[in-house]
């Protein structure tokens, strides 16, 4: 998923999946994140942040 907006105080981010649907995602395990970052998400929690040049190699 791609980070759209960050709520750093609550450890959450609004993220968009490949189809454009938006979800609220826990980001505590991969912080700091910024809009445009790509993250690997399982059950609503980001478990890995992906390097920008490698991010699109992963179907999240």
């Amino acid at each position, binding site marked *: 998923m791609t980070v759209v907006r960050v709520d750093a105080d609550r450890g959450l981010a609004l993220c968009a999946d490949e189809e454009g649907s938006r979800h609220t995602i826990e980001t505590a395990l991969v912080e700091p994140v910024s809009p445009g970052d790509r993250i690997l998400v399982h*059950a609503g929690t980001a478990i890995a942040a992906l390097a920008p040049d490698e991010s699109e190699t*992963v179907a999240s």
Partner: protein
Amino acid sequence: MKYVDEYRDADLGQALAGEILSLVEPGRHYKFMEVCGGHTHSIYKYGVDDLLPANVELVHGPGCPVCVIPMGRVDDGIALAHEEGVIFTCFGDMMRVPGSDGSLLEAKAAGADIRMVYSPLDALRIAKQNPDREVVFFAIGFETTAPSTALTLKRARADGVTNFSVMCSHVTIVPPLRALLESPDLRLDGFVGPGHVATVVGARPFEFIPADYGKPIVVAGFEPLDILHAITMILRQLNDGRCEVENQYARVVPYEGNQRALDVMAEVFELRPHFEWRGLGFISHSGLKLSEAYADLDAEKRFSVPGVRVADPKACQCGEVLKGVIKPWECKVFGTACTPERPIGTCMVSSEGACAAYYNYGRFAREREVV
């Protein structure tokens, strides 16, 4: 899409298939287990097995979170869902898993307030929106999903939410792999390791496979070329006489895993002495429960849970499928009495189940010629 297309490139796939053909020893039969159900689906979705020589066999492992939940746990969930004032929440896949007397979906149809959620955070949100109700989350999954439950419990504690609790059925990946390796039923030559579990736990926990059992393991990504590449890496290890953990999925998996995820899991969970796995029976130290510090948010302590052990249906051979002993189409009820619409076994329910992969991608029966 950039990079995704490269990892699905047909010409590169053919090239890797040619490399695999050049690496195999004619006359030798190779049996590799892909541990993760996500790999099983990629293999059949993209026809990876059609690119392999006939003497390279892929068998499917126990890494499907829904598939390994025993019937008794489903019954416990349904009992909780029928408690007065309870809103029971779970992932969509769990809704259709048969218990001994119907599924959660059927319990919902019978009037229980059961809601499908995308994440434990959604369940916590329902709890905040319904302060006069008790909200229970049925937590399942391996180490990929457990950190999400752990973070949600910490959030519930921090936000002072008291009407939220978790029925914890999280499991860990190493004990079932060790049980499989100890099993006399199965002779394996190597493993395609679970990429997303390894994102959390790292590749290091799999070192026991080469060290104690002399088998290679390659942690792999989920695109078709990732899987073909991992198979070439296993074959090279075998040909070189090496036996080690290799990380094909280094673009996502750090060898040491995600320390923050491991720390939050260590804080919130502790190992159960035993946990029952569908088809595999009781495996020591393979399941997680809430730690003493979070015992007040443990649904099994807050409510009375029957905890009765229920034998799997006789017709169902999910156990043998999960152990890689039989292929899904070898099960007596595959595709006839047991279909995704009316599943008997968990492997047909889950999007990660081997039976569902075979059924959805048309592999109703297949005998491969063995060299």
